[in-house]
């Protein structure tokens, strides 16, 4: 590709770049500071949690370690992931929107960091501060994304609505912690997970199409991949149903069948990968993204199985197929694809990307199948935590140079 062509290609990503001067490279585009912080944060926090759960480390954190573990792994990292997606994706989905960079980006990143700090020191600084900072972060994201809700064509409005719903659920969670709401905070977190899975399904539909089509263009495969809305909608409907029924009747046998149905409906999304003429399931990125759906599907399916045949035993371990597996892989895929494409490179697969995805899947299986190997529970907690952190260590090794250097194709951003 000539330089001219490459520049033309970059205008797919944004039309205008802000004329702020002296922007340091690490603030040149929204995803850069996020990934620079998120990857180390994942490693540090998962290792700490791993040590806590395996009993090697006794953090007198709070009276309710489990609730806050779930809170942080859902809401704490969600804002970073969503921000990476929105700041990178919105100028692309809505040409004319100016990328969010420079000083303002720095302030928002500081808000996210202070949210994390206030979380880890919640015993000293109090719940109010944590609530304020974290809600402010999510609130800002929604404000930032207001265009997608106000868009007349409503092409991507569902993303905005689900973010508003997640904000409402987070408010509800803090209300229950503070005693303003009678609901059980653990049940609220399960509702939050459902909402986040829906967000992931909606985001994946877009990331999927973008990445797969870019990949095929790169490889000269003459076909077009379309992720059909009805399949995603069926999966979203099933997840909503499962979440609602689980909140109201967590042990009802009908929930078991709904869990199995949800698993099947999520797997159905992958049938779009079989194109009319070309076989693309041998392409690494297609396989990576395929596994996101497999993990989510396994999580719901196994939870359903557990309710029907195992009296609900092990359900929280099976839920890790959704969280550690499905959500973890989604974060990883967003980080890898954006890390290549938006630093001016081709979407490349190599031994590192293979290892990242494999370790995450391995970690998920170790964590998710603990109910079948109860006697090794403690070791398995630790191993899965270590395995889960390896992909992010590799990410640091491979991508931090890209994130700290200007785009390879020479354009701004």
């Amino acid at each position, binding site marked *: 590709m000539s330089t001219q062509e490459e520049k033309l290609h970059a205008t797919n990503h944004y039309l205008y770049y802000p004329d702020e001067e002296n922007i340091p490279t690490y603030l040149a585009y929204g995803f850069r500071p996020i990934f620079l912080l998120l990857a180390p944060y994942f490693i540090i926090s998962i290792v700490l949690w791993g040590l806590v759960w395996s009993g090697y480390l006794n953090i007198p954190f709070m009276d309710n370690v489990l609730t806050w573990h779930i809170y942080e792994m859902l809401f704490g990292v969600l804002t970073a992931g969503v921000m990476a997606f929105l700041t990178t994706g919105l100028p692309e989905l809505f040409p004319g929107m100016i990328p969010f960079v420079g000083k303002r980006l720095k302030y928002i990143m500081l808000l996210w960091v202070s949210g994390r700090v206030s979380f880890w020191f919640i015993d000293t600084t109090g719940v109010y501060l944590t609530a304020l900072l974290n809600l402010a972060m999510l609130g800002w994201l929604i404000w930032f994304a207001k265009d997608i809700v106000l868009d007349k064509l409503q092409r991507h409005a569902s993303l905005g609505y689900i973010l508003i719903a997640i904000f409402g659920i987070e408010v509800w969670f803090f209300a229950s912690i503070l005693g303003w709401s009678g609901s059980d905070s653990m049940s609220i977190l399960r509702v939050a997970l459902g909402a986040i899975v829906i967000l992931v399904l909606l985001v994946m539909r877009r990331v999927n199409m973008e990445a797969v089509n870019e990949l095929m263009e790169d490889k000269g495969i003459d076909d077009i991949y379309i992720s059909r809305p009805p399949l995603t909608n069926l999966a979203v409907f099933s997840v909503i149903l499962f979440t609602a029924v689980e909140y109201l009747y967590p042990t009802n046998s*009908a929930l078991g*069948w709904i869990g199995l149905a949800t698993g099947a409906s999520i797997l159905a999304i992958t049938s779009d990968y079989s194109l009319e003429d070309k076989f693309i399931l041998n392409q690494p990125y297609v396989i990576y993204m395929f596994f996101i759906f497999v993990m989510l599907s396994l999580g719901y399916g196994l939870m359903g199985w557990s309710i*029907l045949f195992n009296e609900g035993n092990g359900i929280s371990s099976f839920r890790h197929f959704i969280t550690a597996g499905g959500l973890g892989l989604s974060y990883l895929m967003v980080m890898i694809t954006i890390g290549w494409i938006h630093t001016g490179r081709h979407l490349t697969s190599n031994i590192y990307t293979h290892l990242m995805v494999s370790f995450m899947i391995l970690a998920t299986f170790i964590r998710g199948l603990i109910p079948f190997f109860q006697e090794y529970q403690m070791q398995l907690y630790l191993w899965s935590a270590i395995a889960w952190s390896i992909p992010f260590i590799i990410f640091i090794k491979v991508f931090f140079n890209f994130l700290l250097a200007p785009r390879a194709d020479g354009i701004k951003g």
Partner: protein
Amino acid sequence: MKFILKILKNLPAYLWSGWGAIASILLFIAFWDIGNQIYGNLVLPSPLETFKTLYAMLHSQDVWEQIDITLYRASVGFGLSLLFGSVLGLIAGFFATASMMSRPVVTILVGMPPIAWIVLAMIWFGMGDETVIFTILVASFPIIFVGALQGTRTLDGDLKEMADSFHLPWHMKFIDVYFPHIFSYIFPAWVSGLGMAWKIVIMAELLATSDGLGASLAVARSQLDTPTALALVVIMIGSLMFIEYIILEPIKREVELWRS
């Protein structure tokens, strides 16, 4: 041969695309489970109990014998209607007079409720295989007959003329011009005929015989054994879905591909 290979090649993708259908079936089962919780085990046993009964039943020799009997009757009945329906339908389609004459007769056959045929057949043939087979024959024959008739009636005259002007040998004319067209009409008719046969065989057995799945259903009813009754229903629906979606649908897709 190429045709079969192509179907086999597309089969995995086709089967994989079935997850959506499986999801909606599982959601339906969830509603069934809610029905059980509202109305109790006697009225509507839970899906899990039904599947457990089914599992036990499939391990009993007796149930397989009943399935064999029903399968035999259904295949003989359907086979006969397939043969007569297709041949007569094709012939009638080639002659305008015959197709004109046959239309009202077909209307009579379609319009007559199968239950009335069963009553007549019981008088004519007594309680046994013949009654069931006859009922299947008269119920699914008209469907196949009409399909075959439509297939030949709607043959494209221009294509025929073209084939004639190129002096195609008769076997090429048949395989490349007539067959794809007729088959795309007659095959869906076979599929609906089969569905009809499978429903009729159970009904006829329930009323007119002392063995077969239908008769087992009658016994389950008289003993108020709802789990067994539902398990039998699951066998019937399961086998029909297997034949229709796993075996016939892939063929149908391939056959109808030229239309789109």
